[in-house]
């Protein structure tokens, strides 16, 4: 069975290669810092299960210090000039899209077909992780296709991957760090404290107030925690179940579904939802780290209001 551990092994080797290439990159004045950062990230993928909890904690601390105090550099592997790229684009034409389409095609094939394939009674892919395994498989096949079809040098995948990884920089690590922060918040019971504050101080005498408190609470809580999944159990147990569903008789399917979507309005508006908001800013090389959030906030605010109206109208229709 192909498990996630195989994907981690691959990721570890790729990051280890980024680290080595970084150290050897004379054009990057911060090559040792970049090497140490990607090297520790590689160590986490390769040996995370053997380091122990405290060992992993120290590793995270080191990663944060390396990237946070002083900045990572931008690796600059030798590559084609813009004019050469333009010529290459004209020469290769629509062939360029073929490897790009291989990734979604493999993900599609993996999640629809390979998910159900068994070899001698064992599922081929770990059923819980089909998407990520398919994505890694698709990435590998697409790299091979790109090298053969577009006649790129063998060093290109790792050198160009490193260039993009340096472009993303510390932001690459942030989503995983925030997931870990969520676990610490859960351990300390932060959610219950905030939920308790909301329900203690706001009187929920009418349907309208309860709908507004639940939707705004889901969005606001998500804003602070970066994740609607963390907000949902707290706000639903604190507001939706006792008031909207039990007291006012709201349809639980409508209340929960639109409640979660109200949380997503918070997701669109917070830097803590890093993979949605900060990672794209880095990937697109925006000068304004919060540029994507600024573009999203009007949509998020409008959708939050619409969600409140929809919940009020649809949940109590019986």
């Amino acid at each position, binding site marked *: 069975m192909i498990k996630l551990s195989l994907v981690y092994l691959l990721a570890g080797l790729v990051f280890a290669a980024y680290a080595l290439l970084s150290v050897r990159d004379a054009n990057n004045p911060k090559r040792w810092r970049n090497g140490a950062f990607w090297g520790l990230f590689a160590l*986490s993928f390769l040996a995370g299960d053997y380091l122990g909890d405290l060992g992993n904690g120290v590793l995270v601390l080191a990663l944060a210090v390396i990237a946070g105090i002083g900045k990572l550099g931008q690796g600059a592997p030798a590559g084609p000039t813009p004019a050469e*790229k333009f010529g290459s684009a004209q020469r290769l034409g629509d062939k360029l899209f073929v490897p790009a389409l291989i990734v979604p095609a493999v993900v599609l094939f993996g999640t629809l077909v390979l998910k159900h394939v068994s070899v001698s009674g064992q599922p081929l892919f770990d059923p819980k992780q089909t*998407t990520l395994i398919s994505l*890694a498989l698709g990435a590998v096949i697409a790299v091979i296709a790109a090298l053969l079809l577009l006649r790129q040098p063998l060093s290109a995948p790792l050198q160009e991957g490193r260039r993009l990884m340096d472009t993303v920089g*510390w*932001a690459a690590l942030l989503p995983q760090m925030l997931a870990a922060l969520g676990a610490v918040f859960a351990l300390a*019971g932060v959610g219950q404290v905030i939920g308790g504050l909301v329900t203690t101080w706001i009187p929920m005498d009418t349907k309208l107030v309860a709908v507004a408190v639940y939707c705004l609470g889901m969005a606001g809580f998500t804003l602070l925690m970066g994740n609607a999944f963390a907000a949902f159990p707290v706000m639903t147990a604190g507001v939706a179940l006792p008031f909207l569903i039990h007291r006012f008789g709201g349809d639980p399917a409508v209340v929960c579904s639109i409640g*979660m979507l109200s949380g997503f309005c918070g997701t669109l508006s917070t830097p803590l939802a890093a993979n949605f908001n900060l990672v794209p800013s880095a990937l697109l090389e925006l000068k304004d780290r919060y540029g994507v959030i600024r573009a999203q906030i009007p*949509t998020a605010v409008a959708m939050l209001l619409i969600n409140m109206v929809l919940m009020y109208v649809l949940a109590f229709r019986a």
Partner: protein
Amino acid sequence: MLILLGVAVVVAGFAIGLNPLLVVVASALVTGLLAGHSLVEVLSAFGKAFNENRYVSAAWLILPVIGVLERAGLQERARAVISGFRAVTLPRLLIGYLLFRQLTSALGLTSIAGQAQTVRPLVAPMAEAAAEARGGPLDDERRESIRAFTAATDNVGLLFGEDIFLAIGSILLMVGFLAQSGIVMEPLHLSLWAIPTAIAAFLVHGARLILFGRKIARGGAPEAGQ
């Protein structure tokens, strides 16, 4: 109550522009210590959770192929293709992408597109080319705001599409939570009630894209990325 200082650390840290990795570590330490755990316990809990969440970062395996394709001229080709279709304006392109992202996410195909897979190598260069085909070369400010809007469109399409799919994480979380609270709910019911919001999101964001396209075409002050 005191543990909320951990949340305050996050808010303040982001507000004054400290490196977010340091902010997150500081918040975890403050929260854990105030909750009465020792430093070693907090660091261990944080390290354990970090290790368990490695799958979040494994998705970066997509970058080598994107890099190779960019080296071979994928962004330039994407621009050229769009410049060839005069009918593809900036709003039409992004509204089309919004619809594509919502529909595929609603079918559970959330990973076939994304910021690294499609936005950076394909959709953002196409959006810039579509704007240039009509209004001439872009200044930096407009280029930034077009990129930001493209990324935003991907997010809106994903978030307001995926909940229509039965087996997505958030639906399963809701089903599990309601079952614990004694309410038995079919995933289908929850996902059906995500449809009205999805339609509204398409209309709201689509309308904003039309307005945004006009603003860019006029060369006026961009709304995003200021």
